[in-house]
């Protein structure tokens, strides 16, 4: 009873609809703490009660749990990753090799034969699920291997015509994983482009390309649809294998 009297004395309770003001008679939220220097102290989160996550020296970030509780525990803190081993990052997916390598290590080939000067092919579509509305960061690294003879094949053939090719890679976000519509096709992410030309005895093997893109997405099941593109001169053959060796894709909720 003593405590309840205490509450009675200290709570600044307002004759408004289910809203409480502290230091204000006109609360704008369910709980409104007014005052130019006012803040909230939660002793359970102080350095005495949370000595690991609040070391008393540097500021400790606050997180919200699924049930709406405030906590100092970063994502994954109780899943064995432990302090210092896992930054407060939410990764939706982390795929170490997101483009299948194919039988000859050519990945997905964009074929640009003598009849055309530009070619575009879908490389891969990667489904993912986001439990929340989010700004996402997408990072990818792909290998490319280039040939002036048909790929996929057991070996690539090096260029010898010294004619510049350009190679481009990007992705779209297929919201709800229901196929790319016009609006989705109008938004291009993760752009990367290279130029390459060589006389005979040019380099062979894999080169790495990478890209990063930022998109705002709603909660739900979506996919990233990657495309590769090549441009060459008239009557040139250009075959580019995307993702034939080690590549990776990471999607992070960028909060």
């Amino acid at each position: 009873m003593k405590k309840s009297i205490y509450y009675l004395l200290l709570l600044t309770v307002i004759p408004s609809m289910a809203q409480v003001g502290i230091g204000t008679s006109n609360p704008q939220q369910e709980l409104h703490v007014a005052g130019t220097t006012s803040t909230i102290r939660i002793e359970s989160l102080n350095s005495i009660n949370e000595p690991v996550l609040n070391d008393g020296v540097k500021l400790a970030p606050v997180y919200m749990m699924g049930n709406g509780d405030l906590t100092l525990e970063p994502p994954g803190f109780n899943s064995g990753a432990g302090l210092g081993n896992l930054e407060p990052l939410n990764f939706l997916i982390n795929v170490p090799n997101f483009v299948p390598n194919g039988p000859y290590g050519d990945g997905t080939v964009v074929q640009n034969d003598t009849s055309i000067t530009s070619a575009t092919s879908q490389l891969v579509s990667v489904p993912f699920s986001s439990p929340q509305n989010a700004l996402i960061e997408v990072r990818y690294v792909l290998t490319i291997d280039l040939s002036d003879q048909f790929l996929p094949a057991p070996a690539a053939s090096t260029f010898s015509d010294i004619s510049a090719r350009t190679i481009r890679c990007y992705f779209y976000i297929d919201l709800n994983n229901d196929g790319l519509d016009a609006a989705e096709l109008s938004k291009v992410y993760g752009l990367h482009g290279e130029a390459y030309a060589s006389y005979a005895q040019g380099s062979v093997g894999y080169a790495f390309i990478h890209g990063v893109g930022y998109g705002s997405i709603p909660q739900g099941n979506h996919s990233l649809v990657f495309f590769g593109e090549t441009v060459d001169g008239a009557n040139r053959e250009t075959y580019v294998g995307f993702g034939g060796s080690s590549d990776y894709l990471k999607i992070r909720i960028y909060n």
Partner: protein
Amino acid sequence: MGKTLILSCFLWGIICFGQTSGVGINELVPEQALHLGSQTGTIRVDGLNSTNNGFNGGEVDRTYPLYVDANGDLTLDISAYQNSDGDDAFDTASINGTVTILPVGLDDGYEVVEITSIPITIDRDVMLELKYSLSIEVFQDNALTIIKDAYARNVTNYFTVDTPVLNSTTRRYAQSSKCYFNRNDAGTDASAAPNAATGFIYNSGTTYIPLTAGTHTLRFYGSASSGTSNRSTFVRFAGGPDAIFLRLY
């Protein structure tokens, strides 16, 4: 339960009177406007839980960084300062979208332009995260003639902060370069007409820039070089889709 009920009664209550020492919950001497005194109690906001708030994904052992907005309201919704989000960030006509090396003038084989600038005003010291992807096409001249010669072209992009003066010691940020070279069929048919791709290639840069409170100007530069002798070069920026992302910390 009793305590909760009593507190609830008062929260829903009627009386309003000012107080200066703050409100204590399990705390007899509140030292802030609201002071929770127990060793385990915390604050629950149902409006921000995973059922009610799209930015709280729920799931086991997942937590979400909490922010306050301009009003001081708690929020889970974070957004970038600027994000082209898949739309085309730049187009050639609305920026200084080209850089030209003419085979006359100072024979340094180098030209640079300030492509565009981004004003930014902040009321506290911040760390700015900056990322961009800029499309590039490389030609010999503004008639879009395909280059065919023995010389590589270097195309570089970067940002500077504030100063409109660009000299060799001006601090650059998010530098990125690409080379372009075409000499088609020189080994087999030296007289063959120019025949090659001209783009799109991309410069993509990423950096962090510390900024003090106040108004700043981010200046986006593009340069072309062709070696110490001037070799005709015409670079077009932003002819394809481009991206920019700025976030303040």
